[in-house]
């Protein structure tokens, strides 16, 4: 069992035009920077990207948007990216906006073999259009389907050769559920360690969910809103 690959470009092998990818992160926090850079280099296009946000104009998924490598985005909030808004309003980019909690739960469901579940989120809004509605305790809920992806790409703090991952702070966000939902899951970590170095009791993503792992380098970890207490 060896899941370790040597570089981001090796990790993304097999990602082809038209595939569906999940990418972890909230804003620019906890995004797989190295893998995104490798996708830009590889020039793969026509991608459907499932990611809570779409990066900013010059970082994160914004880099793939600039190069027109993304055909469709499935996200909950895309407010920080002018190029995204331009492409969407011009009809160059398909966009499926999903309530954040439904997005998280749909990814988890995809990884957990739950094909669909009911949630109250979005009932009575355009999000519910065309969806099955059912009352529970008199309250309407809509049926939401699981999401999965050809490849899920996540970013963790530490990981071992078996794919066990731990995340740091709020860089965890969508990464654990997406790791579950990829047919192939790639983990990009700040520090790659040997099995046994991570405490089994505090693993966030068990290795069974991860197929490839590599230690990234030169993480920029850009901050979107640097707010300081004086």
């Amino acid at each position, binding site marked *: 069992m060896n899941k370790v690959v040597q570089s981001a470009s090796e990790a993304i092998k097999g990602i082809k035009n038209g595939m569906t990818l999940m990418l972890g992160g909230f804003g620019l926090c906890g995004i797989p920077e190295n893998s995104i850079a490798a996708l830009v280099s590889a020039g793969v296009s026509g991608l459907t990207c499932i990611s809570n946000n779409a990066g900013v104009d010059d970082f994160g998924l914004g880099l793939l948007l600039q190069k027109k490598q993304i055909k469709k985005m499935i996200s909950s909030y895309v407010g920080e990216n002018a190029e995204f808004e331009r492409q969407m309003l011009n009809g160059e980019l398909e966009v499926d906006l999903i309530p954040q909690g439904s997005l*998280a739960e749909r990814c988890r469901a995809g990884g957990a073999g739950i094909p669909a579940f009911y949630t109250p989120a979005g009932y009575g809004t355009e999000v519910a259009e065309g969806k099955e509605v059912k009352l529970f305790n008199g309250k309407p809920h809509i049926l939401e389907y699981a999401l999965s992806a050809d490849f899920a790409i996540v970013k963790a703090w530490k990981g071992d050769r078996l794919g066990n991952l731990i995340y740091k*702070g709020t860089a965890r966000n969508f990464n*654990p559920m997406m790791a579950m939902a990829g047919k192939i899951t790639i983990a990009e970590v700040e520090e790659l360690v040997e099995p046994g170095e991570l405490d089994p009791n505090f693993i966030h993503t068990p290795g069974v969910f991860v197929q490839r792992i590599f230690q990234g380098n030169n993480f920029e970890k850009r901050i979107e809103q640097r707010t300081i207490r004086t």
Partner: protein
Amino acid sequence: MLDKHGIAKRIAQELRDGWYVNLGIGIPTLIANYVPEGLQVEFQSENGILGMGPFPTEEEVDADLINAGKQTITAMPGAAIFDSATSFAMIRGKHIHLTVLGAMEVAQNGDIANWKIPGRMVKGMGGAMDLVASADNIIVAMMHTNKKGYSKLLKKCTLPLTGVGCVTKIVTNLAVLEVDSGRFKLIERAPGVTVYDIEKATEGELIIDGDIPEMNI
């Protein structure tokens, strides 16, 4: 008339000891600065933290510790970090006692619109639809009128909805109102604001029951 900080201060009076509270972006964020002395309130940020603390000092800044507005934050002693699915499990499962968020429009039946202006603004709903669909106690913090002077408290929302019949209370620069059997019930006036001022600024139907006290802030 209140400014943004005044609105935040007034909403802070609604807090109770031991509550878990989710604050939206904008005015709601300011509420954390006005928690009454002696109360312990835990702030949840839907990107995955309970026990959110104040902004960091220059030395404390950590790119891996942000709030839902993507601002750098700190964690209080006793904080807990979790993933997005668990975060919305808390929200959807009604474990959060109070949700405060901004709005572009609120209707007198409690509908709220705050995520989309068709053909113009495309930002997405983020966590707002989950929050308003699940919470039992939702306060909207906003200006009473928009930049053009039009009322944001309407008979019926004109923008795409975020949630239906969910808002319980609205605190604006002019007033505190509750959604009461399909109308806005006026509860308090902001300092120096008359009932007439509020009537003029409110398109939706108002219930004005007896003398309306001025806020005590």
